[in-house]
């Protein structure tokens, strides 16, 4: 844990953005409430050190839980397999390429994310498993409640750009001036149809399986 010059001090951290996220979907089958907890609101233009807290992602019932994880650059994530099956966690994203290999049920491994960016993580055995890790430059991020209300606090009192992100939406960004302290905003994210099939760790399509 080390601080950087220019890091916002706590006395400055009084800017806030409150508001609401509204989700829209062209696909009638989408459950908007369930999708709300995959939204991340974050601010860029500010660097902070990573907390020592270890974030955890579970492989459970052939799913990643959670499926969207915002973290700070430098933070560690623990991948725990609490499923009954073997999984193979990997990513080919530029921000973090890694391959945990076959992971037996009951085991766990840790990965440190040192570069900001979007990391798409999949399982090489089960194509339906998908995890998006947002590696952010700071700790100024939040996720809305089920009804879409959010509150992004601890912001420096200056201009910052705030993004609203959802894995299936075109990200929205807006520049705000937090000199005045608290601001209100509403983000409207339009969800596109479910993302297509991704390739496996070798860059090849998954073999179709009956299961």
């Amino acid at each position: 844990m080390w601080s950087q010059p220019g890091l916002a001090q706590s006395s400055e951290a009084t800017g806030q953005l409150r508001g609401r996220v509204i989700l829209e979907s062209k696909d009638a089958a989408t459950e908007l409430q369930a999708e709300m907890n995959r939204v991340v609101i974050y601010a860029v233009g500010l660097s902070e050190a990573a907390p020592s807290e270890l974030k955890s992602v579970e492989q459970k019932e052939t799913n990643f839980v959670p499926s969207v994880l915002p973290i700070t650059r430098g933070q560690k994530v623990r991948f725990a397999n609490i499923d009954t099956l073997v999984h193979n966690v990997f990513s080919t994203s530029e921000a973090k390429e890694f391959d945990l290999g076959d992971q037996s049920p009951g085991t766990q491994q840790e990965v440190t994310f040192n570069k900001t960016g979007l990391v798409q993580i999949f399982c090489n055995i089960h194509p339906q498993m998908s995890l998006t890790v947002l590696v952010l430059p700071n700790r100024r991020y939040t996720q809305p409640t089920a009804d879409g209300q959010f509150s992004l606090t601890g912001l420096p009192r200056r201009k910052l750009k705030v993004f609203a992100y959802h894995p299936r939406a075109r990200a929205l960004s807006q520049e705000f001036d937090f000199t005045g302290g608290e601001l209100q905003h509403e983000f409207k994210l339009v969800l596109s149809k479910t993302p297509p099939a991704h390739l496996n760790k070798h860059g090849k399509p998954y073999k179709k399986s009956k299961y």
Partner: protein
Amino acid sequence: MSEATEQSQDSRGLTLTSRARRISLSWVLGLAIGVITFLAIGSSLLVGIGAARRAARDAAAAQLALGAQEISNSVDVAIEALAKQIGGSVADPLIRARLAHLSRQDESLGLAESKVTRADLEEANRYFRSVKTPLFTDHALLLLLDRERQLIYQSGGEVALGEAPDLRAEFLDQMESEGLAVSLLSQDSAAGRKSLRHLSEPLLLLGRPIVVNEQVLGYVVVADPASPLFEKLAELQGVRIEIQSADGELQFGEDFDPEHGIEEQRELRIAGDFVLGQLRLSRDLRKSLRPFMMNLYATGIPAAFGVSLLAFAAAVVLARRLSRPIREMRTQVRKVRGGDLQLKLSGSSIHEIQDLETDLQNMVDGLRQRDLIKSTFQRYLPPHVIETLLADPESAELGGRAEDITILFIDLANFTAFSERLAPGELVGRLNEFFESITSALVAEGATLGSYTGDGLVAFFGAPLRQADHAARAVRAAERVIESAETLFGVWRQAKLHGSDRLGIRIGLNSGEVIVGNVGSQYRQDYTAIGDNVNLASRLEGANKAYGSKLLLSSATYLAAREHMPDLRAQRVDRIRVKGRAQALEVFVLSQSWSVDFEREFQSCLELFDKAAYAEAHRKLVSIADHPHTRQLIELWQRRALSFSEQPPPEFDGAFQFEKL
């Protein structure tokens, strides 16, 4: 099913079946089988259609998958080839930097760390410009446009655009005139789409703004009409193409309900690493299946109808075969109705029909038997007796059997004198009046009427219907007959008919075993009794003349009747011997009208006579008081007693010869 047919009677009493609902067996069977066949074929067709649909769906899905793969491959290959042709490769950092911008994911999220500066871009631009040779790629036309939509680089074609053309007008015109399919995706998508329609067949495009430091520096457009990629896309008729990128979405083709179609999705990747966007191909299966389905309907439905009709026809033929024996039965039954009690049935192999034929045969046999009984007896027996007989036809025994019965011979005395003065028609009429009255009396006691003997008739009790009290019935009947006859004679006397005052009635009764049966030939038959006992009854009837009586019974009748009529009073009036019969016959009259005294006196006279005390008998007979209707009897015995007392007969066995009465 009571409403299925209604039966009514016509004026002749024939049963009519109304035409409420009459369906022929042929139709029922034909329709049933026709419908079943049609349904069977129909359901097979549906199953077949279902299978075909699935097969078509799988084929279309495979095709889409292939198409999507090729498109995404092509894009990837296109960019790689491009990079190669400008002397670099996708591994080239500068190229990679530009590609990184193309993929733009982290960039668009504000999370990109590596930043390409404007200087880098300008250097790349210079590099691209320096390559003057008209590059043609097998795969793509690459246009790099700056922010003002000025072309900064192009590959392929021989279009020289000049340094800063106004893309909106000139560039598009030139592209069109060169026959190049070019599309432009701008931030103003509406304008972009307009240009799409304006130009010929744009099929694939990636309009990616090149953004560096949050500034849009230019655009990338990739399109090549000659590319096999486009050919591939052109093959995908009826396919809807959607391309999603961070900048937005592009769609070609008609939207449709995803339920009716199949989808295939791919990432559009460059150089294995950079994801440009998502490609989705979808196809409306209804469209692709339509020709197949039309064909199926065109051939399948007529075939189904054809086969059903065939089945219908076959069923009709079968039904007619089935109904033939039934129709034959009907013909035969109508003959029976007409009176011909001979049933000739053809025989069928179907056991239900066979059983029906057997039952019909039995029924008609039964009818014949009953018919015979009725026709035989209806003139002899009252209806209720016939009904009893019909209930047990076997008991009728028309052939002949021995029975213990009582026979009555009834005669109209002095009929000749009566008939002399009557016209034939009136004679018959009067005779029939007589018969009408006495037969009513007889039938009332359950008599079987025998033959008419001119001015008399024979009746008997105990056959064909067994009557335990046949003798008693006969006695009662005889009394009734006398009463009826006397009444009738009174009427005739009142009418002053000639000879009516001398009319009388004579009845002889005997009981015993006789032979009864239907005697005669096919032309005429009578149910009669034959035997000695019958002759005896006849003689008794005649013997009434000797005693001046109306009714004589044999001892057999008297004794038999007394069993059922304990109060019956009869008195022996004679003992006679009949030729051919060894045993003497005791003859009785009914004596309830006699006083007790007279009866006792007379009886004692007879006893005296039996004891051969002829003189004493004579004295008694003379002294006996007169009694109604007995004068002739007394006088006869007086004569006998006198004659015997004067001259006793040498051998007298107590019985008088009948012939000598």
